[in-house]
Structures are given as structure tokens and as C-alpha cells.
């Protein structure tokens, strides 16, 4: 279950170097974070690896965290940046092998009339739009928190969410 950001005591304890507090924060956030990354990457192993790296980075850079702000957007922001870094290297790798162009063609030529479930429809959205939609609709983030996590202006997040909703509705034939 995705709960509210606990903030306060656990975050401050973790920042002071208390591993138990960090464990609690990890326990609370691992499910939504891994779910978010699984949707973005489309691969459970890759997503779990990214989630692990994000938690390790959060622990190592805990002194950079501002306790006056919420922990969840900061953590998801780390995960988003890690995902983008890795996506860049995937893309480079695929381009080198000439496979990326084929994959893009397949996405563009996808049959719009095809019956899709929500997950498949989400996967067809551009990553930035998908991330904004997943955070705001699926992870209970406010637009402001999503903007912070994705390092995007608030207006961009709002527009991603609105456009993403429309596109999802179109993909799904207005079922949801």
C-alpha cells in the first residue's frame, strides 16, 4: 500500500546515520518505488537494480537532503535521474547495434485500435509523460511533489498529466 510520507523523525534519524530509520524508510517506499520503476523500464530485474541504486545513493547522500521537505519526492527524484542515465546508455547501446530504429518504428506503427490494458497503454507514452502520470495518479504525489521529483516546472507536469490522461483514454477507448 502506498502510504503518506512519514517525513520527520525517521528521515532525521536516517540523516543522522541511524540505519534502523533508513530501513524503515526503505520498507515504506520500496513497493511504490519499485512499481514506478517497473512501469518505466518494463523489466522487473532492471527496475529492482535501479531501486537498489537509488536507495544506496539516498543513504550515501543523506546529508544533502533538506529535512524541511518531503522524503518521497527526493527519493523518487534520485530514481528518476538514475533511470534517465541508464536509458541514455541503453539508447546508446541500441543505436550502436542498429536496433533502436527498428524498435521506434514498431512503437510508431502500433495499431491504435488494438485493445490495450492500462499497463500497455502507459508503456506507449513518452517517459516524461509516463513518469508524471504514474507519480500523480498512481503514487499519490501532488503536482508540486512530482515537479520536484522529476525536476520539471509545475506547468510542464500539469500538462504532462492532462495530455497523458487524454492519450490513455484514447488508447483504452475511454474505458477508464
Amino acid at each position: 500500500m502506498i502510504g503518506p510520507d512519514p517525513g520527520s523523525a525517521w528521515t532525521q534519524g536516517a540523516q543522522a546515520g541511524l540505519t534502523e530509520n533508513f530501513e524503515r524508510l526503505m520498507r515504506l517506499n520500496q513497493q511504490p518505488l519499485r512499481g514506478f520503476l517497473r512501469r518505466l523500464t518494463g523489466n522487473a530485474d532492471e527496475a529492482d537494480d535501479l531501486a537498489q541504486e537509488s536507495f544506496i545513493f539516498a543513504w550515501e547522500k543523506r546529508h544533502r537532503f533538506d529535512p524541511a521537505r518531503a522524503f518521497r519526492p527526493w527519493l523518487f527524484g534520485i530514481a528518476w535521474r538514475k533511470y534517465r542515465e541508464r536509458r541514455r546508455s541503453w539508447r546508446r547501446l541500441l543505436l550502436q547495434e542498429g536496433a533502436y530504429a527498428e524498435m521506434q518504428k514498431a512503437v510508431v506503427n502500433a495499431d491504435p485500435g488494438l485493445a490495450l490494458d492500462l499497463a500497455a497503454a502507459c508503456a506507449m507514452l513518452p517517459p516524461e509523460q509516463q513518469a508524471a502520470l504514474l507519480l500523480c495518479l498512481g503514487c499519490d504525489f501532488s503536482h508540486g511533489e512530482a515537479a520536484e521529483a522529476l525536476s520539471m516546472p509545475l506547468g510542464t507536469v500539469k500538462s504532462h498529466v492532462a495530455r497523458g490522461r487524454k492519450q490513455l483514454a484514447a488508447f483504452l477507448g475511454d474505458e477508464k
Partner: protein
Amino acid sequence: MSERNATMAAMIVAKVAERDLGFEIRVLTRIEQRRFIRSLAVNLVAAAAAALLLALVAPQLDLLRILGGRLMGDLSRSLSMLTDEYLLMAPLLLAGFVAWYSRPSAQI
């Protein structure tokens, strides 16, 4: 303002365990491994620096003369020779204390 959608929320957490001990242990293990490697590297550098410092400073200490004096039974002469070296001994002691108490492995 949150626009939470129950279907989307359920899709995100689908197939991800609410509590995954394996995942938590893997993260904590990797944190510990990194901590260990970092503290090992820092200690190795500190040890190398200390060895270098000693290699530079130790020859200045006339230990053979001091020890020789003690072995010959002239303890007061040996001690006075040792205190004569305070300009070298005091910074060495101070550097040792500072290095020990501010070593990063003590704070990680």
C-alpha cells in the same frame, strides 16, 4: 493537489511485495560493502601517509644514541636527550592524535 486514481495505484504496486526482505537485505548489504571498501581505502591511505611521515621524520630522532644511553644505565641522560627532541616528538604525537580521532572510518 493529488489526482490519485485507484486503478493506476493498483497497477503500480501489482506484483511488488509490500515487504520484500530479500530486497532490503540486498540494499543493506551493498551499503555495508561500500562502507567497508571506503573505510579500507581511507585507512590504507592514512597508513601510507603515516608511514611516509615516519620515514621522513624518524631519521631525525637520534634513537640509537638515546637507547644506547639507557642501555648503558644513564637514564637521566637518555631522558634529557628525548626531551631535547620535543620539537619533533610533539608534532608527531599531535598528528597521531588528530589522525586517529578524525579518521573517517570512526565517523562512517
